[in-house]
Every structure is written in structure tokens, then in C-alpha cells.
């Protein structure tokens, strides 16, 4: 059966670099190199564009017909179901941690802040993209109102959804936290967020991939380090799947 032999040989030749890579990745230094390479990407992105450079904004006609829901698309907890049933009238966003003036905001408080509306593209780590209009206050306004302390280095987003038995969370550094397009969105294309897209509140971190855009937002926490949170890698997918904390590529 020469055909089978040839295929086995081809498979073996292809498997050689792959097997070597698997071996390398699981035995140590490769992980450090990966993290370094990702750090260089972040440094290069921020050096090539300014730290406050905007992600592209589109015209209304450029929007896609829908924004795919991914990850959690339905939150099962009784608290969330009850909150949704009464239109999130009692939903609170806690702004705590390293702030001099911690806040607890209602949906009305959030809608009363100065709003930013932006039509941006949502890029999933899987490869797909959707374009939609998002509205909400800038995160920077909340950080200033709550008086972020000097020792804070990261902003952690707390969420109502649980995936694979773990609370979803995410984090960004202060460059992305203070970016003008980093908003706490409550509206999608002019209507309140649908559940699959994170109702009632979700983050928009426009220069990074979708998994950074935490949905079902319950809290914003300022921390000096995220080492003590979850498994210490700065986010749900970072902890559970070793996804990179910087998701700009």
C-alpha cells in the first residue's frame, strides 16, 4: 500500500516541527519568549501610533446587520434574571478599589454622564468582525469622578456572567483605561444592549480583541497589580486558556 506509506511519511514530516514546537512550548522558556514577543507588539503599536490614537470609526451605513454574541450569550443566575425582568432598574455599577471616592452608580446615573457614541469594529480573537454603534460614558470620566489613586496601575472589570464555573473578568492598563474610545456602553445601535451583547453594560476597548470587552458589567476596580485576582493573569481567558493579556494583535 504505497499510498498509505507516502501519507504516513508526509504526516511524519509535517509532524516533526509541530511535535518539536509542542515539546518546546510545554517545557519552559518558550512561554517567556511568547510573553516577550507579545510585549514587543504592544510597545510597537503604542510607539507607531500615539497612545491616544483612535481606532477607526465608521459611517452608519457601514454597520453590519448584527453583532454576533460570543462566549456568554445568556446569564443564568437568578439575580441576573430578576434584574433583567425589571429592566435593570436596580442594576448597580460599583466603582471601587484604589479610589479616594468610590462610587455606586445606577443605570440612570450612567446615562446622565456625558456620553460618547462611536461606530466601531468588533474583532473577535477567532477572526470574525462586526461593525456597530456603541453609546456610553467614557471610562476616564468615572476614574476622575471616583478619584483614582496614584498607586493604581490597572483597571479590573467585574462581570455577572460565569463561564466554565468561573466569574468572567478582564483588565487593562491605564493607557487603555484613559483612551477616549474606552466607554461603558449601554446602547447598541441606539437601543439598550441585547443580552447576548452584554446587557445592561459592557466595556468597549476598541484597540484590542473582543475578549477584553467585558460584558454584564457589575464593577470597576482599580488595583496596583492583578496577581491576586483569579489565577493572576489579568482575565478569564488569560487564566483559563493562556490567552495573552495584551490582545491588540
Amino acid at each position, binding site marked *: 500500500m504505497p499510498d498509505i506509506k507516502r501519507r504516513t511519511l508526509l504526516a511524519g514530516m509535517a509532524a516533526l516541527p509541530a511535535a518539536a*514546537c*509542542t515539546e518546546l512550548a510545554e517545557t519552559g522558556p518558550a512561554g517567556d519568549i511568547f510573553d516577550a514577543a507579545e510585549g514587543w507588539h504592544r510597545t510597537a503599536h503604542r510607539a507607531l*501610533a500615539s497612545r491616544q490614537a483612535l481606532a477607526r470609526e465608521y459611517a452608519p451605513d457601514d454597520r453590519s446587520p448584527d453583532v454576533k454574541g460570543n462566549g456568554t450569550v445568556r446569564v443564568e443566575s437568578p439575580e441576573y434574571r430578576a434584574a433583567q425582568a425589571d429592566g435593570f432598574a436596580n442594576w448597580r455599577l460599583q466603582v471601587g478599589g484604589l479610589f479616594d471616592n468610590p462610587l455606586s452608580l445606577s443605570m440612570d446615573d450612567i446615562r446622565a454622564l456625558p456620553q460618547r457614541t462611536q461606530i466601531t469594529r468588533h474583532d473577535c*480573537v477567532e477572526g470574525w*468582525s462586526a461593525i456597530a454603534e456603541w453609546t456610553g460614558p467614557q471610562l476616564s470620566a468615572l476614574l476622575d469622578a471616583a478619584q483614582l489613586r496614584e498607586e493604581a496601575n490597572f483597571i479590573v472589570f467585574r462581570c455577572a456572567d460565569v463561564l466554565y464555573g468561573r466569574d468572567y473578568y478582564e483588565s487593562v492598563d491605564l493607557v487603555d483605561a484613559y483612551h477616549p474610545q474606552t466607554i461603558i456602553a449601554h446602547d447598541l445601535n441606539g437601543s439598550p444592549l441585547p443580552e447576548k451583547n452584554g446587557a445592561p453594560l459592557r466595556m468597549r476597548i476598541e484597540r*484590542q480583541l473582543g475578549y477584553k470587552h467585558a460584558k454584564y458589567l457589575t464593577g470597576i476596580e482599580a488595583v496596583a497589580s492583578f496577581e491576586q485576582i483569579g489565577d493572576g493573569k489579568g482575565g478569564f481567558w488569560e487564566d483559563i486558556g493562556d*490567552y495573552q493579556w495584551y490582545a491588540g494583535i
Partner: protein
Amino acid sequence: MKRHALITRLWHWINAAALIVLFMSGLNISNAHRHLYWGHYGFDPADAWLHVTRFPAWITIPQRYDLAEARDWHNTSAWVFAAGLLVMWVFSIVSRHFWRDIATRRGDWSPRVWVEAAKAHLPGGGAKHDASYNAVQRIAYGIVLGVFLPMMVFTGLAISPGFEPAAPWMVDLLGGRQSARSLHFIFAWGLCAFFIVHIVMVLLSKPIKQIAGMIAGGTREGSSDA
């Protein structure tokens, strides 16, 4: 004078290793969303211009579906690949390697010349196995070095939301992020085709001497070939 400069040989093998890792980890990444679109957005398989097959684990890096690790291999090797390509291009222009050996000459773009070059490599065709490339080789290497390899870098950069604010025009030029992603895929398979033809050609034309030449340098006159 060596047939291949030291920097060419170093680049050739480093680039080959980087490309293999990029290609095989890229197949793993492709498995995450196996649909390709044109334009700025695309997420509904109904809008796809191509539904891509699921690549089996044995041909991917790592050898199981793992998007996070595949992205690590891909985004790390991309530095090696892009930096190497930049160094090679600077060297090729400064040393005139490009103008001397790769840039096409008057008459190269003629099918008659291509047929002649092919005939010369048939038994008894009398091809000179010296250092100079024929018209078909100049065109093939020129397109790979000048179009396919750089396009892998540009389309890759255009997919990155963190890079986009630095050069939004690049995404526009490529027709949008999903078009850039489709082109990334198309050029990757173009390079895969080049890789296969390249290896077949080496195997058909004194493979030991060719490979030794790309390692040790070889001789420019090809006198040992006589």
C-alpha cells in the same frame, strides 16, 4: 566568491523555519473561524466567499486545537519573519544582489523565453548550472520576495486592531479587515505552492549540491558542475 552570501544563507534557513511555524500555526488559527469574507466586517458564514476545511491536528502547531498557543507561535514567529525580510531586502539592495541576480531583464517576460528555460533543463538541454538564474527563476524569486512575502506582513498587520490606528490607510488599501484576512490566507497558500515547487526543483537538480550550496555557500562559477 561564494554563490550565496552568508547573509542570504542565514536568512534562507531562518526564514524557512519561521515560515513553517507561521503556516502550521496559521492553520490552527484558521480552525477557530473557518469562513472567509470580503470587506470590513464578516461573521455570518452565510456571507462567506469561502468555507475553509478543518485542518487536521497533525498538520497544525500545536498538534491539537489550541487558539491561544497557536497565536503565541504565530505572533512570535512573525517578528522573526518580518525582521528577517527587512534585513534581507536592505542587504539585497545595498549589495546590489537584487539588481544583479533577481531583477528581471529585458525579454524575461516572454513565454518563449520561459519555454526555452524549461527546455534547457530537460535531459540534454544543456542548461548552465552556474550561479545565474534564468528568466523563470528571476520572475518566481522576484514575485516571492517582492510581493508574496511582504504581503504576508502587510495583511498580517492589517488584521491587528492594535496596529490599525498607526496605519488605517493600509487596511483601506487592502479593502477592509476581513479582506486583509482573506488575502493573508490566499498569499499563505501561494507561498505553500512556491515551497512545494521550490523543493521539487531542488530535488530534480543536484539536490545535495544545491542544499550544500545554501549551507556552505557554493561557488559562483559552478566549475564543479562541469
